[in-house]
């Protein structure tokens, strides 16, 4: 796979020959891609082609999944994050992950945001409060929940829950956010809200987003990576700027996929 035409310090992740398997089943074979610091990298491809598996490797959450075996190299600032001695908890602190299904903890809204802060050593209550306010404002939730911070997070709507999860990732001041189909469990109105949120977050954070929605990938993605499944194993077909993938793809498969001509 030809690397994107960019200089090396504008790269966040440098993925080289990444292979993921679950037990004996190969899920992703030999993926190499550079992911840029700026903008949104959208990952598209049919179901089961290993998009989520790929995403989980970028913050090493893969090691939490029983049976998941990862090989290859993923570099952040020249350091291999897949090396066993690499501190994966501090990596996850720098790289937030938003799940497909909103998963706020069944605790109060405040506690959801306070928990990661306190666990990462923030003691000062005023600092905690101001961080909570800042992040809720950043995701546009502040005005909706400021009077009910002690209400259960599960009492929020799906879209609000997803934004709360994004806020929860933001309290740790990450450099990057991984999003696994962040809108697929949401109605169109909430989707529009979250989409514009992603757009505004992309100014400050590196974002990698999996989506099944090609129009969403086109709207939000500055880069696009197209995954495909061959012989039961996922692989990267091609990656490039959004413009290039959608308008002049190098592979016929990509062409057919973005035109909706393959199932």
């Amino acid at each position: 796979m030809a690397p994107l035409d960019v200089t090396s310090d504008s790269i966040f992740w440098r993925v080289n020959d990444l292979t993921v398997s679950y037990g004996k089943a190969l899920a992703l074979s030999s993926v190499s891609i550079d992911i840029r610091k700026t903008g949104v990298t959208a990952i598209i491809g049919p179901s089961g082609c290993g998009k989520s598996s790929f995403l989980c490797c970028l913050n090493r959450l893969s090691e939490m999944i029983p049976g998941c075996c990862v090989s290859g190299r993923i570099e952040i600032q020249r350091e291999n994050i897949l090396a066993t001695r690499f501190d994966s908890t501090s990596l996850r602190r720098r790289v937030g992950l938003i799940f497909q299904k909103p998963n706020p903890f069944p605790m109060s809204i405040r506690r959801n945001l306070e928990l990661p802060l306190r666990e990462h050593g923030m003691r000062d209550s005023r600092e905690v409060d101001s961080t909570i306010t800042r992040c809720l404002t950043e995701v546009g939730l502040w005005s909706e929940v400021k009077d009910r911070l002690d209400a259960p997070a599960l009492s929020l709507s799906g879209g609000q829950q997803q934004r709360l999860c994004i806020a929860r990732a933001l309290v740790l001041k990450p450099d990057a956010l991984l999003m696994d189909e962040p809108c697929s469990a949401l109605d169109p109105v909430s989707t529009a809200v979250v989409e514009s949120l992603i757009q505004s977050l992309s100014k400050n954070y590196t974002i990698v987003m999996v989506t099944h929605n090609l129009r969403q990938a086109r709207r939000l993605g500055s880069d696009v990576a197209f995954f495909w499944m061959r012989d039961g194993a996922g692989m990267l077909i091609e990656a490039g700027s959004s413009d290039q993938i959608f308008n002049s793809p190098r592979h016929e498969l990509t062409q057919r996929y973005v035109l909706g001509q393959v199932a």
Partner: protein
Amino acid sequence: MSVALDDRPTNASGHGRLLVLALTWLAPAIVAAAFLWLIGDVVLRGIGGVDWNFIVDVPRNAGRAGGIAPIIVSTFLVILVCVAVAVPLSLFAALFLAEFSRASVPMSRIIRLSLNCLAAVPSIVFGIFGNALFCVALGMGYSILSGGLTLACMVLPILIRTMENAIRAVPEDYRLGAAALGLSKSQVIIRVILPLSIPGLLVGLLLGVGRALAETAALVFTSGYVDRMPSSLLDSGRTLSIHILDLSMNVAGGDKNAYASVLVLGVLILVINSGIAALLFFSKRRSGLTS
């Protein structure tokens, strides 16, 4: 409403339905009646014997007269020892089984198998085992300590199993969500998994305490019969269930106070149950899970 063309099978299944319907009403009615009869019997016969004096006085004339103050104290102490030992042990064992070992690993299979066997052991066997180990080998004699420790061994399997299930019942989403926030494994367990499994853990505690309160056979040979007020955990002490057993089996004319003691035990169980139910209710309401 659909009309069957051939009404014989419909009729037959109609009878069958009626029978099933009757049975589904009859069975719970029988259960409810038996329960009400039991409660009614105990309350009617016991209420006369229960007054303030019965609670605060010591037993006199082998329990025929006087009260049950030392017996209530001994019961509490035995349960306290049992809970203090069994709960932390079970919690760590459950955490090990649920969080640190795959279900297929030989180690955890052996543990599960032995727990299942232990759960099926009759309590008299625990009594004899407790006597041999705690009273004799460890030199604790007939004492509240021996009794509580024996009970702890006895409730361990049930506690571990319910606690393991409670911990496993925390959805994987929350585990991954917490790990994705850069929390270490121990932080995930302490801050997320344990708080979220509290309702299930409480249910386990309830089952364990209920079982311990009802136990007699395991205590006869360990905490003993002595009905004096215990002055330390190394004193022998008689629990409510043993007192009831003794009054009804060995003491002629002890029936009235036996019933009164049953009533006290019943109320105690009710209070503990409602207390834990209240805790459950509040912890669920706070989390926003269904009331």
